[in-house]
């Protein structure tokens, strides 16, 4: 290929990239940069110009007990949703991968919550969780137990939100495990059967290690979702009672659109971006290397 043709190719390629590059710049790179910049400025009071304050906003954030509470909630939320929904997803995949009467129906039941909007799911669960007249407490009452204030008791509310999220997500992760299970050569199982390996030890010694890349893939996705999906809070709790169910992204929304404090919103957004950077690093180093050797 001569030099001129090469140049033309380069130019052509650049042109093809242009629309995507412009859009990504406008809605991903530029806002990331301005978010960081905004977190370093304090807007002027009553029309005064904004002042550069270095890391002061971060200091204010670190002194804000609500921020720590929200960050802790988000961590608990991740710890509550991620392993549970992954374990359930694997369990579901194992169940529907075996011969089972009505397997199609069962698989559909597991997967259906995935295609509902979070808002719709939250609406439905609101009826379960309502104290006194909600379904859960009616059932508990029928069994002679005292009702629980599922969303109004700060000790329980985050757990209630977690349960709903797990219900919503497990089926989604199931299909990845299912695909991976079906890719496992049946000869392995046959050989294990000949040797008289128990099902349990076959699972732990053969299946589970073979599923490792899927597990990591699902883990990354679950972690991202634990940060990015806060839609259900708008319906279920609005972050209450007393911030017991507030999560980082919802707190950003509140700061920006309820308190009109864009600076604090930017500062918290930077914290979220840092968390996502850690997850991204995890993906690009560990996950991609492992899948490579698979």
């Amino acid at each position, binding site marked *: 290929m001569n030099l001129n043709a090469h140049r033309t*190719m*380069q130019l052509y*390629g650049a042109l093809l*990239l242009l*629309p*995507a*590059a*412009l*859009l*990504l710049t*406008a*809605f*991903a790179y530029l806002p*990331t940069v*301005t*978010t960081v910049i*905004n977190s370093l400025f304090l807007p002027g009071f009553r029309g005064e110009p904004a002042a550069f304050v270095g890391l002061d906003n971060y200091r204010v954030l670190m002194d804000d007990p609500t921020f720590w509470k929200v960050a802790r909630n988000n961590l608990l939320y991740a710890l509550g949703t991620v392993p549970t929904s992954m374990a359930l997803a694997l*369990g579901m995949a194992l*169940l529907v*991968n075996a*011969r*089972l*009467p009505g*397997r*199609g129906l069962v698989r559909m*039941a597991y*997967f*259906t919550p*995935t*295609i*509902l*909007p*979070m*808002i*719709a799911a939250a*609406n*439905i*669960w609101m*009826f379960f969780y309502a104290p006194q007249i909600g379904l859960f407490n*009616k059932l508990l009452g029928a069994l002679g137990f005292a009702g629980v204030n599922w969303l109004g008791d700060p000790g329980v509310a985050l757990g209630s939100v977690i349960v709903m999220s797990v219900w919503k997500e497990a*089926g*989604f992760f199931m*299909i990845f495990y*299912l695909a991976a299970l*079906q890719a496992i050569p*049946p000869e392995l199982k046959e050989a294990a059967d000949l040797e008289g390996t128990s099902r349990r030890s076959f699972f732990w010694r053969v299946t589970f290690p073979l599923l490792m890349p899927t597990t990591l*893939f699902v883990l990354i996705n679950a972690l991202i979702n634990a*940060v990015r999906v806060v839609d259900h809070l*708008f*319906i279920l709790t609005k972050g209450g009672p007393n911030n017991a169910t507030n999560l980082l*992204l919802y707190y950003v*929304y509140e700061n920006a*659109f309820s308190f009109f404090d864009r600076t604090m919103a*930017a500062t918290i*957004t930077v914290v979220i971006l840092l968390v*996502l*950077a850690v*997850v*991204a690093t995890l993906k*690009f180093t560990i996950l991609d290397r492992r899948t490579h050797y698979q």
Partner: protein
Amino acid sequence: MSTSSFPVSPRRTLALPRLETLAAWLLAVIWIFPLLYAVWAAIHPPAYMVRFDLLAPLTLDNFTNAWAQAPFARDYLNTFALVTGVVLAQFVVCTLAAFAFARFPIPGKNLLFMLVLIQLFVFPEVLIVENYRIASELGLINTITGIGLPYVASAFGIFLLRQTFKTIPRELEDAARIEGCGWLEILWKVYVPLAKPTYLAYGLVSISHHWNNFLWPLVVTNSVESRPLTVGLGVFSAPETGVNWATVSAATLLSIAPLLVAFLLFQRQFVQSFLRAGIR
């Protein structure tokens, strides 16, 4: 819903012991129950919300109430326009970019590609405040374009299509060139047709995502003119004075119905699309 959704030979499957069959079914019932409950609440008078009586009178009043009380027709229209627009625009923009990454000698290509992949983590709703400002400066507040545009250059789409394009043999491209096709013609006649399954998969995933998306549309829309179903439902469910459960159930079902029906009809394609999109 046949069991043939996945091509599994009977030789491979194992019979489950009884207990596990029971567990599988129990879990399935628990998992589908919330949806069944919403249906129950929606087709009975409000008095039967938590009273399960097989002889309870059936009614469609809740649906007519919900339909009359909120501009769901407009919301539907907006959601359809949004989803169609986003998916088509994504196809165009991502195809061009993926083609460039797959076939053109761009300097610093790997670095650029990594930059694109960042968007897998830094998605528009995390940057709501700044994206809101940018949408505002571009005059996109309260427009359907404003809801969709930040998602058009999708790293995910670019990634998937690039993978697919890379697997297409160069010989096909060369043959087309001998026939005198230019680059865009080659893309249109060789690459795009061969990537059809990828488009289907990505399209279905994208449709589900945008049908269900809430936070960014909430922030960027102001009125019924641009509000999609999810936001309409959110506003409908959180009124000033109090909710009527039966009506909210009906509204909820109304807004999920098209996607749910599509899913039940094309279950196989949906599931395999999600799979194809997720696993390389």
